[in-house]
């Protein structure tokens, strides 16, 4: 039987990135994916014939540029189509739009508030400086603040260097932003409700917190760290959907010599003499390797795949208490034609090519959270909608369209029976129809991924899109456990490379890449 250098459990984008880097460094790598296809939450599926649905992630922004370059993803099929605008339709028939082009946004904002149009520039520059300063942290392993080990001290010094270069004022703004709610922070800048609301949404994506909960400021900053082709704070749609992006990494990994095995759910990690030495699949097949790296989330890895007796009690407790209650659903619609939005004036249909945010006001968003936080769902949910077929006609048959809706909040604590699922799907469609009266008549097929479905389909605990909450007490050296935040685990030769590790969720490739760097260093040491 073949003995590998490394086995990666899970072919999510981080697992694939990780495998590609190890293979590139000359290691024999095997990726084991439980589903019929790799990609994890980064996937395109033809749920209805001819219509390609984005049942997981839908846009790319935080992907580390190094990953694209070093793995030569362009060569392996990655094509990014930049998103052109953000549109907030309002029920009063008006709208607010936002473009990467500042002059256009400024002109648009002047329609709503002169003051906001003026502060907008300064706000953008401030956020840009903050994210520039924070960005290097994405590519660092998080140092242990209590350790006197040389590598930790060096890393601390690097972080200090990063933050030390900030202007004093920016540093203070950063401290405040990280500890404030995004709504309070934006109240200091703007007065126009829909403008505040769209800026607020970055603070709640994937997060079970309301816009008025402190800590959402940090989440917003996390989403500002994106950069595509060197353009900061921009979102892009990968041609063929996020699944095509995952395929490009898989291609790269294979080209570097990694093997990928699909339909291979891992049942348990094999541990001998306290060290991981392989895995056994649910069908009983066994595979052996020097290192085992899990791309699955921390709770799944340590509460399901690793026998308890190999884990210290306090570590187990850390994993059990890791917060992963999730508020996010994904809805996809197959449409007979392009829906019209009452708020979009004739001739401005190009606005539909960007994101469409159902986020008319800050109170609307907070109410959506309040409805769901005791274990329910929002009566009027927040939605981040996209019509991918406008950007990439290949996503739907000619003349037809697909619509992707990221929806919050609906609690993972709900007992998601088929009836509940259908009911919430109705809530989503009804809410959207308030902005687009002809929507319902154009729906050919609708599909929802509740937190429960996300858990079942992608194997993510509680369906938390980031493999655990991005709250401040679960960041950096606390992610996922205070003592095990550097991709290593209490089991020798077992590593982590998924979104439960620094710097967390989203399509970033960063956990996969950072873990590979650490593992390779450790190996050669």
């Amino acid at each position: 039987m073949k003995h590998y250098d490394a086995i990666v459990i899970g072919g999510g984008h981080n697992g694939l990135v990780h495998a590609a880097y190890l293979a590139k460094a000359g290691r024999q790598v095997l990726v084991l994916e439980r589903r019929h296809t790799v990609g994890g939450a980064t996937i395109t599926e033809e749920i209805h014939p001819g219509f390609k649905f984005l049942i997981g992630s839908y846009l790319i922004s935080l992907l580390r540029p190094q990953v694209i370059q070093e793995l030569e993803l362009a060569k392996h099929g990655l094509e990014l189509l930049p998103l052109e605008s953000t549109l907030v339709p309002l029920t009063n028939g008006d709208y607010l739009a936002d473009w990467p082009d500042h002059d256009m946004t400024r002109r648009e904002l002047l329609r709503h508030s002169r003051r906001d149009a003026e502060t907008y520039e300064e706000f953008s520059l401030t956020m840009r400086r903050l994210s520039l300063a924070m960005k290097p942290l994405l590519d660092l392993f998080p140092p242990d603040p209590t350790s006197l080990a040389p590598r930790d001290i060096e890393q601390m010094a690097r972080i200090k260097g990063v933050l030390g270069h900030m202007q004093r004022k920016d540093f203070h703004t950063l401290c405040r932003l990280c500890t404030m709610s995004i709504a309070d922070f934006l109240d200091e800048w703007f007065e126009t409700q829909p403008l505040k609301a769209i800026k607020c949404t970055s603070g709640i994506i994937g997060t079970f917190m309301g816009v008025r909960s402190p800590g959402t400021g940090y989440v917003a900053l996390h989403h500002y760290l994106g950069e595509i082709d060197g353009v900061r704070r921009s979102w892009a749609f990968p041609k063929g959907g996020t699944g095509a992006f995952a395929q490009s990494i898989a291609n790269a990994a294979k080209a570097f010599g990694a093997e990928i095995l699909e339909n291979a759910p891992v049942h348990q990690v094999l541990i001998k003499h306290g060290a991981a030495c392989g895995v056994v699949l649910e069908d009983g097949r066994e595979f052996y390797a020097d290192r085992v790296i899990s791309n699955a989330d921390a709770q799944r890895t340590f509460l399901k795949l690793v026998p308890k007796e190999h884990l210290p009690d306090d570590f187990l407790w850390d994993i059990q208490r890791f917060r992963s209650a999730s508020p996010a659903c994904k809805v996809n619609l197959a449409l007979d034609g392009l829906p019209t939005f009452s708020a979009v004036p004739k001739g401005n249909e190009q606005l539909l090519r960007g994101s469409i945010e159902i986020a008319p006001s800050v109170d609307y968003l907070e109410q959506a959270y309040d409805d769901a936080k005791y274990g329910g769902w929002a009566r009027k949910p927040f939605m981040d909608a996209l019509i991918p077929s406008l950007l990439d006609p290949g996503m739907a048959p000619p003349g037809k369209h697909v619509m992707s809706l990221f929806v919050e909040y609906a609690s993972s604590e709900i007992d998601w029976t088929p009836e509940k699922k259908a009911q919430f799907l109705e809530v989503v469609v009804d809410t959207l129809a308030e902005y687009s009266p002809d929507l319902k008549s154009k729906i050919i097929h609708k599909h929802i991924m509740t937190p429960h479905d996300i858990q079942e389909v992608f194997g993510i605990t509680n369906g938390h899109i980031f493999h655990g909450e991005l709250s401040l007490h679960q960041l950096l050296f606390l992610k996922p456990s205070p003592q095990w935040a550097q991709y290593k685990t209490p089991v020798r030769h077992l590593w982590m490379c998924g979104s439960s590790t620094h710097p967390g969720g989203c399509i970033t490739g960063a956990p996969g890449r950072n873990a590979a760097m650490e593992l390779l260093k450790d190996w050669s040491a």
Partner: protein
Amino acid sequence: MKVLILGSTPNAFAAALTLADAGHTVEIVETATVVGAPYVTQDGGEAGLAYPHFCPVLGKQWGITLPSLAHTGRSARRADGSWLHVRRSGLIGATEHDDKAWPHFMTLMGQAGELLYYLLQNPEPPAYLAEAWRELGRRQSMEVLRLPWMSLRDLLDEWFEDQALKGLLAEVALEGVAQGPFASGTAFHLIGRWANGQVLSPTSLPGGSGSLMASLQAALEGRPVQFHHVPGTPELAPDQRSLTVGTQAFEFDFLLSDKDARWTYTQLVNPRYLETEFNTAIRNIRGRGVWQRGLGRCAYPGDWPEQARLDLIHWEPGLIRLEKAWDRVKRNLDVEEGPLQLCWPGLLDESRPADLIQESFGYGSGWMGRGPLDVTDRKYFTPVDYERDWQFTQGHLFGGDRDLSQSFFLRPIADYQPPLDNLDLCGSSLHPADHTGRAGAWKAQELIRRFSQS
């Protein structure tokens, strides 16, 4: 130097005494209708804060000894009529799981509280903090680092199963805080309250917290400090050399404002003379009173447990109840059922009437009076009163929220530099954001150094 201090919280006195001891001439003037806020005792009950924590080090320096009466602890009455008693020595009436967890929780909070206490007790982080830190060890220090960012819900759910216990602890933490227990960073408030002993051993002063005022005033005797109470609107002369209230004028070389930062830089100093950026930062200070007091008459119910008589009693506390109340307050809606704390100070302190009941209603005032007991002669004190009678902006008793984004070097605003050269703050708007007298004493020391240099 002639220093005028505007306001009369313990910080004002601490500043005055420090300056007087260094040979400066000091006048204190209070322009609010009431002196000594937020420690005001009326008819034997507390109209504002009940548990003064004047810094013992400063107290010793000026011969201010404060005899304190200790409550036995805290109790919670559950909706089913059962009781939970929370003591330093352990829990009574708790579940087995919580009983076991309690000592470990106390250790963790004790450690976090102690470190925070060191930080709050000193103007700069002291050297022994590092020592204390190292002693905690790797695991525990990380555990402590994890705390301040957490929500009370996350923290308490991790440790306990009983809603009453969780609710009780959350209510203590959130007294006067404009946040619900689900919000990140609210655990920081619990550490703060733990640090000053308010959670497990709340103490009060014989005769009420107003007697702190009497002790502070007594300490002025024989020192070159004059105290004036002139209710009215203080006006700063254009040359910034004198302050007039009604017909009286007070001259000064330096003015220390014990009033909060927002009040000082909007009501006292005309914002037109200040930089826009500074004004914006001041305007952005968050701090809204969400806490009210009821005083009335009602004997301790005969069918309530003897054990809770000398406790602070929390009425049917729970995280959900608390959060739901907050949901309404944040939208400025009336609360139907909020957190309620009861206590009978007269049972602990013979100088006060035995049937005097002191109630604290958390969040909106809408549900005041809808408590479980038949209270007569009830008087209410709300943030509206605190703002009008005590000159506390938005009725907030600590000069602004004390959450992480407004603490330490971010308090009162990030990078605070007094914009006028002979006027500064000296109250709870400054770090460490309390009424222990430390902020006042530190500011006075800073001034003394400055005066001696020039």
